[in-house]
């Protein structure tokens, strides 16, 4: 229960080319301080703490750049309130770019 008071742990996964912006790493296990986390808040946190290059290819205004798909525990975030989704400890949040390759 000490995890609850110290923050939450989430797994961030990147695919479809989005990993290229994050040190080419497809999986990041992170601990977030406090309990009050939405995906929108996480996006800014990722931009400040994980993103290595070209932030404009990841974010546009206060959300992901159109063309990046987001899944929470393998469910489309469009079914979960998108940026307003409240993150639970243990969630896996996946970002897949549709904009690469072909």
């Amino acid at each position: 229960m000490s995890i609850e008071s110290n923050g939450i742990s989430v797994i961030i996964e990147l695919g479809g080319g989005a990993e290229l912006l994050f040190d080419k790493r497809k999986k990041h296990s992170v601990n977030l301080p406090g309990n009050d986390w939405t995906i929108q808040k996480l996006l800014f946190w990722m931009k400040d703490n994980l993103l290595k290059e070209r932030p404009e290819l990841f974010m546009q205004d206060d959300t992901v750049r159109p063309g990046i798909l987001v899944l929470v525990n393998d469910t489309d975030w469009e079914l979960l309130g998108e940026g307003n989704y409240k993150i639970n400890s243990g969630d896996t949040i996946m970002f897949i770019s549709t904009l690469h390759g072909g």
Partner: protein
Amino acid sequence: MPIPCSRQCGKKAILKRPKTGHALCKECFFYAFESEIHNTITQGKLFKPGDKVAIGASGGKDSTVLAYVLKTLNERYQYGIDLFLLSIDEGITGYRDDSLKTVQQNKDDYGLPLKILSYKELYGWTMDEIVAEIGKKNNCTFCGVFRRQALDRGAAFLGVDCIATGHNADDIAETVLMNILRGDIARLQRCTSIITAGADCIRRCKPLKYAYEKEIVMYAYFKQLVYFSTECVFAPNAYRGHARTYLKDLERIRPSSILDIIHSGETLQVKEGIKLPERRNCSRCGFVSSQEICKACIMLEGLNRGLPKLGIGKSTKVKRALESIAKDKCNDKCNGKCKDNERIEEKDLEF
């Protein structure tokens, strides 16, 4: 709280479809996605039993999903077609060499024969060598022109009846926009056709024409299909990039925009009296062309003569060079008396 599947199958929805707004579970999504492609194929009469079909395979998401779905549907609905994978190796170190490994894996995973043709063997130049000559600007033009013809040649080599490409709804909407922005009426008419064919050329079709990119990527993800997703190491096609960003912004506001743009493209009619370029065959290589000498031959000639900008430069220069090519070619026969070649347009080729 999980949202139930719109089909009332009792399972939990995993995705919101951009086309319909429906929330579907994994199985209902697979079924809907595959059935729609099946409908596209049957309504558009894309294949006949006995057809040999080459899938233009790049190792990217679209062609990987296309190969998987065509193989699945061919078995499920007994199209009776023979499928092949056809890949073009442009010779781009750090990009195509890696993506071709993915195609090799598709070949093993799906049990489909694979043919790889390289720019080097077709044209004597790799893209790496071409970029060393022309720089990073305009190289997409070379690559696009050469790839189109390379696919035709590969298809002729395999003796297939049809080339299926992975162009998806987003790609086609993007191309409609680009052709409008460039005033390219001939391509605007052509680019939404689900089948394109000329007298002598192998027909091409786009089974994913109505499939949204989002669904293609979700399908690949949930089916755990392996695809290659690295950006080409050379400068991206900037003009297409703008059209793409614009389209993606529209899609966010109104997801049906993509299909609506395709619909507009399909139903546009060019008014009478508009002159469209005729389709004929290149007098050098025999492939379909809208000019006396096709774009690929002009570009190749430029590269070989040390005038790499030839295919993309001013049309007057192209005309002069063409005259000299024509003279070279027919000096023996007509002592240079052959008629002037037609003006070459200087636009990029798309589709």
